């Protein structure tokens, strides 16, 4: 009782102290956005039944709050709903929820720890890939930011260490996450090609990124290295003769960017190695897979409100079988299931501080990153297809 009273008194003192010190500045930050996308395709489906008309099953809605009780500490969380065809039904998810503590290592440097659900540092865009005003296009380059495995790429429950160190006119940013990535049905589709009666029951992952750039961000170079282990538990149907085991997933990304007032040039290259041999059965002999993928992107800003984007985006599921012909012989599936080459042109308009629009055209050859969930009939998947998108965003 005595202690409780003492504790409440301490709390009161702490809070009143904060309130007095902060005069007219609130240490609460709240905001969010809603983005609605429209998708139409001539062949194949992306984000809903886009080939049968216009699909509006592509929405992003998020609200965040951050509280900074001390100058070196904050708590932050964001809830997001992201309906995306049959890949995501839009059930609200905790996007991140974390406590951040930063240590003092000399003036104007930052080094700290985040604990909780943290965004994974991966390439240039991953942490805010669902935030339309931080990404260059409506659909990010699928070579690096695959929408079909977003769930497992987006965040992890664990610990993150981060640091930011100026060295003369250069700056180094270091991020390291150790934790449990979100496992789920999306990972099954991506790594086992279907949603079986079994499931991934556990996950462990490490993701690290080092970025070097000049202080004004005229240029940036980054390297991302990561490893995931996903534990698979077979279900009652025992599909493919799989037994319990780990799927290992190694990823490396090299990133580069150059910015001027009118131009932003960017390129990223990714190598992924997936090892499923531990599951035995179907994967006993062909459980290893090495993919590589890249994009080259140019953005031209006509003025501060209008921009034009041009991109080439290429993905090979098996870098030792870029044509896909070996896989075709082995599985009987068309060779173009093994790769995708996408030309993208996009136009952006910042209508006001809070409202923005984008329009985009993708001409795609190959179907490797088509969501299986939206294209259940393998026989109707076409090699060449066009995708047209519109997007409107309101931020508050």
């Amino acid at each position, binding site marked *: 009782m005595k202690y409780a009273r003492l504790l409440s008194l301490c709390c009161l003192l702490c809070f009143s102290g904060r309130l007095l*010190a*902060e*005069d*007219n*500045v609130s*240490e609460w*930050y709240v*905001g969010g956005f809603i983005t609605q996308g429209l998708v139409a395709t001539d062949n194949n489906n992306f984000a809903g039944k886009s080939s049968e008309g216009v699909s509006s099953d592509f929405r992003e809605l*998020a609200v*965040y709050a*951050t509280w*900074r009780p*001390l*100058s*070196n500490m*904050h708590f*932050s*969380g*964001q809830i997001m709903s992201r309906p995306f065809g049959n890949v995501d039904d839009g059930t609200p998810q905790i996007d*991140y*929820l*974390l406590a*951040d503590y*930063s240590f*003092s290592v000399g*003036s*104007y*440097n*930052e080094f700290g720890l*985040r604990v909780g659900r*943290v*965004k994974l540092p991966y390439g240039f865009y991953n*942490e*805010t890939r669902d*935030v339309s*005003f*931080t990404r260059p296009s409506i659909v990010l380059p699928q070579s690096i930011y695959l929408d079909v495995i977003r769930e497992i790429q987006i965040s992890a429950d664990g610990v993150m260490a*981060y640091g*930011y160190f*100026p060295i003369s*006119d250069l700056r180094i940013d270091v991020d390291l996450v150790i934790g449990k990535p979100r496992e789920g049905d999306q990972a099954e589709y991506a790594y086992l090609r279907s949603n079986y009666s079994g499931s991934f029951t556990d996950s462990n992952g490490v993701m690290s990124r080092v970025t070097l750039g000049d*202080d*004004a*961000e005229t240029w940036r170079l980054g390297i991302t290295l990561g490893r995931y282990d996903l534990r698979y538990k077979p279900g009652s149907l025992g599909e493919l003769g799989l037994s319990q085991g780990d799927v290992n997933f190694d990823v490396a990304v090299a990133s580069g960017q150059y*910015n001027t*007032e009118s131009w932003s040039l960017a390129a990223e290259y990714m190598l992924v190695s997936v090892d499923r041999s531990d599951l035995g059965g179907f994967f006993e002999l062909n459980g290893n897979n090495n993919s590589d993928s890249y994009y080259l992107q140019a953005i031209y*800003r006509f003025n*501060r409100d209008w921009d034009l984007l041009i991109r080439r985006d290429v993905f090979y599921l098996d870098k030792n079988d870029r044509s896909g012909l070996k896989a075709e012989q082995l599985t009987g599936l068309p060779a173009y299931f093994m790769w995708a080459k996408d030309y993208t042109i996009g136009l952006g308009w910042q209508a006001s*501080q809070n409202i923005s629009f984008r329009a985009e055209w993708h001409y795609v050859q190959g179907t490797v990153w088509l969501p299986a969930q939206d294209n259940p009939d393998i026989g109707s998947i076409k090699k060449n297809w066009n995708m047209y998108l519109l997007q409107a965003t309101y931020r508050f």
Partner: protein
Amino acid sequence: MTHKRRTYLAVFLLMMSQLAGADSVIVHPDVKVSSLSSQELRSIFTMRSTRWPDQNAIHVFVLPDSHPLHRSFVKTQLNMFPYQLRMIWDRSVYSGAGYPPILVPSIQEMLVRVKSTQSSIGYIDDNSLPLLKGVNIIEIR
């Protein structure tokens, strides 16, 4: 003729005011820093550095992205472009890594808020210099 001359004078004065409109960085008087390197200034306005050397929380005030003073400040003092700054803030805010700067609609409001907020920093144009009272100017090295 006089009318034309007057127009020239007006244009000349306008140009002068534009030239003289070099920007100054201002802080609340409790900030115990009198000068910053341009790198330190960038680090503060990109919201990467969040504390003064005495560990007090830095409160950053900015004008809207489209405000002429914001654009000139970002270009001349930070050697960056407003779109880059906006991108850095948004990436940080929407990943839980940090917080946004505090937006004020006008230069007058900037002065009022920096004056009344402890550990704060902002910027003004030199036309507002005569109005400065209750804030300190920071020298940029």
